[in-house]
C-alpha cells in the first residue's frame, strides 16, 4: 500500500542533504566533538564554547585547533563500561574458583562413584553420593515440563499476536506476564496442596488403564511424583516462553504476512509459512530460556517431588529428585563434606545448563543463512 511507510524505498532521499554539510568546509567535522563542560574549558580561556560548536567561525582561522582534553566524559564513560564488563568476568571467575575449591575435597572423600552411584549420603562417616539420579531427575522434569508448556505457550502467543482482538490481547498478555511474577515458592505451595489431589487421581487412572507402559507402571503410592513436579514447572515456564514468542511473532514483517495472504493462504496457512518460520530462532531461544529456568528451579520442585534419589522412568509414583531441589532439601543438615558434595552437584547443573545453551545456539546458527537475510 502506498499509505504504509516503507523503509528502504525512502533511503535514497538522504542524498541531497549530504551536500550542504560538505560544502560548509572541513571545520564541520569539529562539531562532532562532545560538548565541552565549563570546567574543561578553563585552560584555553576565551577560546570558547561557541567556536567548538560553530564550525563556520574562526576555530580554523585562529591557527590552533582546539586541543583534545585529557579527561572528558567520553573516556570516563568508556572506562566505566569497561569496568562493568570486567566485573562480570571477575565475579564468574571468583564463583568458579570457590565452587571447584569446595567441591574437590568432597569428591575425594566420596567412597562411591560420583557418576554412577544412585543415592545421596554424603554426611556419613564413609560418604557415598552420586549425581546420576539427580541429573536424570533434573533433565526428566525439565523435559516433561517443556513438552507440556511449549505447545500451550505457542498457542497462547499466536492467539495473542494474530487472533485475539487488540483489547483482549493486551489484557491477556498482561495476565501472562503477571503469571511470571508469581514467586516460585507460591507455585510450590499451590502444587503441593491443590494440584496434588487431581494429579494423584489422574495417576491412579493412568496406572489402572495404561499401567503396561513403563512410565505409568508401579504399585504406588502415587501423586508426589515427577508428573506433579513437571506440571508445576510447566506452569512456571509457560509465561516466559509465551511472552518471548509473542514478541517474536509480532515482529513478523507485514510484507511477508501479506505475501502469504495474497497467495490465498488462510490465517493458519499464513502463520505456517510466514510467521512460524520467521520466528523459529526466537521460539528456540524462548524454549531454551524456559528450559534454563526449569533446570535451575529449586523450591517448587523441592516441595512437590517425593525426593527419592533413584533413576526411574516412572513418572507417576512418589519419588523423583533434582539437583537444585536436593541442594535446597539437604543443605540444612549437611556437614562439611555434605556441603562440598552439594556444591559439586551444583557444578554439574551448571555444566548441564551450559551444554543446553550451546546446543540451542548451534540450532539457531545452523540456518543462519536464511534467518540473517530476514532482517
Amino acid at each position, binding site marked *: 500500500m502506498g499509505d504504509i511507510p516503507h523503509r528502504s524505498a525512502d533511503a535514497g532521499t538522504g542524498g541531497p542533504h549530504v551536500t550542504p554539510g560538505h560544502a560548509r568546509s572541513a571545520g564541520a567535522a569539529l562539531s562532532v566533538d562532545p560538548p565541552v563542560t565549563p570546567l574543561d574549558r578553563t585552560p584555553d580561556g576565551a577560546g570558547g564554547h561557541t567556536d567548538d560548536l560553530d564550525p563556520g567561525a574562526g576555530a580554523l582561522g585562529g591557527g590552533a585547533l582546539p586541543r583534545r582534553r585529557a579527561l572528558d566524559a567520553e573516556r570516563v564513560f568508556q572506562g566505566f563500561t569497561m569496568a562493568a564488563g570486567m566485573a562480570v568476568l571477575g565475579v564468574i571467575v571468583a564463583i568458579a574458583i570457590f565452587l571447584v575449591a569446595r567441591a574437590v575435597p568432597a569428591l575425594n572423600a566420596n567412597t562411591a562413584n560420583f557418576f554412577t552411584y544412585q543415592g545421596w549420603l554424603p554426611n556419613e562417616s564413609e560418604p557415598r553420593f552420586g549425581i546420576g539420579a539427580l541429573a536424570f531427575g533434573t533433565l526428566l522434569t525439565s523435559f516433561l515440563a517443556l513438552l507440556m508448556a511449549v505447545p500451550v505457550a505457542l498457542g497462547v502467543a499466536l492467539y495473542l499476536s494474530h487472533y485475539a482482538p487488540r483489547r483482549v490481547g493486551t489484557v491477556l498478555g498482561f495476565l501472562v506476564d503477571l503469571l511470571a511474577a508469581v514467586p516460585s515458592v507460591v507455585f510450590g505451595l499451590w502444587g503441593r496442596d491443590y494440584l496434588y489431589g487431581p494429579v494423584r487421581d489422574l495417576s491412579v487412572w493412568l496406572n489402572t488403564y495404561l499401567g503396561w507402559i513403563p512410565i505409568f507402571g508401579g504399585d504406588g503410592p502415587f501423586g508426589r511424583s515427577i508428573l506433579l513436579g513437571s506440571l508445576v514447572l510447566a506452569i512456571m515456564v509457560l509465561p516466559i516462553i509465551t511472552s518471548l514468542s509473542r514478541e517474536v511473532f509480532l515482529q513478523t514483517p507485514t510484507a511477508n504476512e501479506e505475501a502469504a495472504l495474497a497467495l490465498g493462504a488462510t490465517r493458519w496457512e499464513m502463520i505456517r509459512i510466514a510467521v512460524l518460520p520467521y520466528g523459529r530462532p526466537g521460539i528456540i531461544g524462548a524454549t531454551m530460556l524456559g528450559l534454563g529456568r526449569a533446570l535451575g528451579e529449586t523450591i517448587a520442585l523441592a516441595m512437590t517431588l517425593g525426593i527419592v534419589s533413584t533413576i526411574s522412568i516412572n513418572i507417576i509414583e512418589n519419588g523423583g529428585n533434582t539437583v537444585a531441589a536436593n541442594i535446597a532439601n539437604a543443605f540444612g543438615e549437611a556437614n562439611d563434606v555434605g556441603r562440598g558434595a552439594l556444591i559439586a552437584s551444583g557444578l554439574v547443573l551448571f555444566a548441564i545448563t551450559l551444554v543446553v545453551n550451546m546446543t540451542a545456539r548451534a540450532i539457531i546458527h545452523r540456518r543462519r*543463512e536464511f534467518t540473517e537475510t*530476514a532482517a
Partner: protein
Amino acid sequence: MATRIEATNVTAYYGSFKAIENITLTVEPKTVTALIGPSGCGKSTFLRSINRMHEVVPGARVDGRLTIDGQDIYARDVDVTAVRRMIGMVFQRPNPFPTMSIFENVVAGLRLNGVRRRSVLEEAAERALRAANLWDEVKDRLGKPGAGLSGGQQQRLCIARTIAVEPQVVLMDEPCSALDPISTLAIEDLMFRLKDRYTIIIVTHNMQQAARVSDRTAFFSIERTGEPGRLVEYDDTQKIFSNPREKRTEDYITGRFG
C-alpha cells in the same frame, strides 16, 4: 485464462475514514491497466480491494460491487482465499519469504493448493521462473535463500511466485518503485509478455512507465487531504497522455499538480 473485472460504486474505508468513493470502471481481459494519481488518492486501496487484501487491515471494509467475470467477489458465500488465488498480487517492496529458498518461494502458492509431487512442483517452478525471466539467473542455485537475490531479482521472484499458481489477474502495487532503472526495464518487459495470458493492473507513480506499459489508464485524485479519492478519468492510455478530457488529468500528467 484472462478475465474481465467490473467495479461498480466501490467505496473503501479504513475505520471511519473513507479512502475511495464510488469507483466505477471495467478492466478488459488481457490488457494492462495503469492506475495513476497523486499520493493518498486511493489507487493502492482500490487495487487491494480487487483481491480483497484491503480488508486485511483491521477496521477496513469495502462497499459497492466488484465482479470478476460476472461473479461478485464480495458475495457472502465467496471463499476469500479462492479470490486471492484467482487474483495474484505483487507488492511495492519485494517480499520473498526470508526463510525459504528460491525454489520454495516459487512453489509456496502451489503447496498451499495441496500440490505435493516433487516433479510437478519442479516443472511449475521452472515454468514460472522462465515466465518471470529469472530462470537463467537462478537455475543453478534454486536451493539458496530467496532473500539473497538482488532487489530486481527478488521482485521477479515474487512475480514468479504469483504466476506459479496461474491466477487470472495479476495486480501490481508500484512494483518498480524500489528498483533501479535496469531492473525496472526487466519488469516492464515482463509485463508486456505476461499480458498475453493475464489481465494486469498496475499502480505506478511513474508517468512514463504508465505510458510505456499500459493499454488503459485510470487517473485517481483527491480534492484535498481528508477527502476520499475519486476516479477522475479512465480511457485509453494514448488518449490520456495526448488529449485528456479533464483539465485535472492534464495538469497531473504534465507535472503542474501532484
